[in-house]
């Protein structure tokens, strides 16, 4: 926990500095008769972020905050593995949406999660994986008329559009 507190503060400090540099692309100073320039608002707020990070580090050195006193592990092995599998499978699903679309990636994700991470039987896992995309289709594409990304599977949906839209 103690190490994580410091690492996070330093990473966030670097991010703040990047934001300051990026904001400075627009005028950050005071324009007479007008007030602050376009970059001033984010620039000074990022400066505030940087100062907060410095403050967090000072408190870390003085061991004030609970996290800086804690000798516990930031994430134990179990937490790490569940985080890795859950966040990892979501990342893979989002990446897959670009290629095989929502209607390909969603059933794969559901099947993987319920069958392999959840340990449910094949029957319910398959049912969930097959029913959910149908509900998504009717809710988003038909009722809300929001076209979800379909990747290369797009042409397969033309007949469905003809029927429902």
């Amino acid at each position, binding site marked *: 926990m103690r190490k994580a507190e410091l690492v996070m503060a330093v990473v966030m400090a670097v991010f703040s500095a990047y934001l300051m540099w990026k904001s400075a692309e627009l005028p950050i100073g005071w324009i007479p008769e007008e007030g602050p320039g376009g970059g001033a608002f984010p620039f000074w707020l990022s400066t505030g972020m940087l100062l907060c990070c410095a403050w967090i580090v000072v408190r870390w050195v003085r061991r004030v905050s609970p996290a800086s006193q804690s000798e516990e592990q930031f994430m134990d092995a179990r937490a790490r593995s569940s985080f890795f599998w859950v966040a990892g499978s979501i990342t893979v699903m989002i990446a897959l949406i670009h290629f095989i679309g929502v209607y390909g990636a969603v059933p794969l994700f559901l099947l993987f999660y*319920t069958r392999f991470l959840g340990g*449910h039987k094949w029957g319910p896992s398959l049912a969930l994986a097959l029913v959910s995309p149908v509900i998504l289709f009717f809710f988003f594409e038909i009722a809300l008329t929001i076209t979800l990304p379909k990747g290369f599977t797009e042409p397969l949906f033309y007949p469905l559009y003809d029927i429902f839209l």
Partner: protein
Amino acid sequence: MEIFSLLIEGFTIAFEPLNLGLVIFGCALGLFIGAMPGLGSVNGVAILLPMTFLVPPTSAIIFLGAIYYGAMYGGAISSIMLGIPGASTAVATTFDGRPMALKGLADQALVTAATASFIGGTISIILFTLFAPPLAKVALAFGAAEEFALMMLAFATFIGLGGDDIPKTLFSIFIGLVLSAVGLDIISGQPRLIFGDITGFMHGINFLVLAIGIYGIGEMLWTIETSKGEMTVSQANVTFRRIVDGFRTLRRTFKATMIGSFLGYFVGILPAAGATPGSLMAYGVAKTVSREPETFGKGNPEGVAAPESANNAASTGSMLPMLTLGIPGSPTTAILLGGMVIWGLEPGPMLFVEHRDFVWGLIASLYVANAFALLINIAFIPAFIWVLRLPFTILAPLIFILCIVGGYGPTQDMHDVWLMLGFGVVGYLLRKLDYPMAPAVLAIVLGPLAEISMRQSLLQSGGNVFVFFERPISGTIMVIAIILFLLPLIKLVRGMLGRKATG
């Protein structure tokens, strides 16, 4: 009298078949969301907001209001039956609700929680109905300077009253505001903070991307990690007769319920406070004034009634500044406020003039939602207990999918989905290190409004900073805000002086 006719007008809107259906559906869904450990009103509202584009704004806010309400009722169910709060707002309910359940009085605790929620809700809606119109009238005179001062006050309450680690709270506010500045500069129209020249940043970062990232994906990751062990559901013997018996304890809990209702309402109005501290405070006060404080924590129904009435009252209270001033009183109302912007409504007092049907439809629907939440809650106690046994490994992936398609919906850009995942993961890691997340969500919603009002005031005054202090109302609010910002510093200095004196 004018209020009555407006309220009746509101009821005709709330009783339209679509809206009434949405109230009932929203209450049931809210109860379900509240009852699930790890999900609360803010998660439900954030994840389901994109789904409401299907219906007109008035129906949408009525639906989300009902979810908000139902979730406050529902939180008690898992607090009592599992000993795990269904949402942070129901933490205080576990203190006495769980011991009652272990003594075999689960049904009595559930009935006490439901009726206390109902009374807290009703009192707060009546207060709301009476306070909102005059406050909105006052707020109509507000200009850009007052608006900016109010937003400063909203952020200051997090520092002065938040109780979290101060540098981390400030950091959370700042990062939310900076993220809200991404996109085109509102005054000059120049592109700003376009990271890596990715065009997806040109339309700015939608608050929903951050809200769903944090309250959807981040919250799920958190719940998956924290709910490791198996949970044991208490047995509840629910019969009609025992429920009627449960109502008999109402006289005993009357005082605690009243304390919770009024305290919750006024605490709920404050942006930083809201339902969680409101219910904890109500528990504390009810214990202090109780005739038998020693039985608190061992299964005293007063200890269930006070926090449960308070969290419902606070949820109504937090809507007061949202509707009248355009300043949300809680993370959930921050998301509702962002929703109004998406629906094309301008939050703030003008709503009472230009969109009366929206405002009064919502207010009337809260009365209806309160009644239905009580009925559904008591009638379906066994069903909600069954819900608690639903495996999380089925629910979690479905919620992830709702988050992803919901995050895609508003802008229809995969860029936002990636961003949401990033916010979810980083938000989860930050939360593990005690960085509060609610200020960031409030900040990203208020950020664009705060920047516009600040720069407009400065443009109008020719760059004079004292414009915020010269006008009486904005000056007063600014001074209060500055005092709240400095409060922790004053405490620190006093603490140091005190240590010196004793040393």
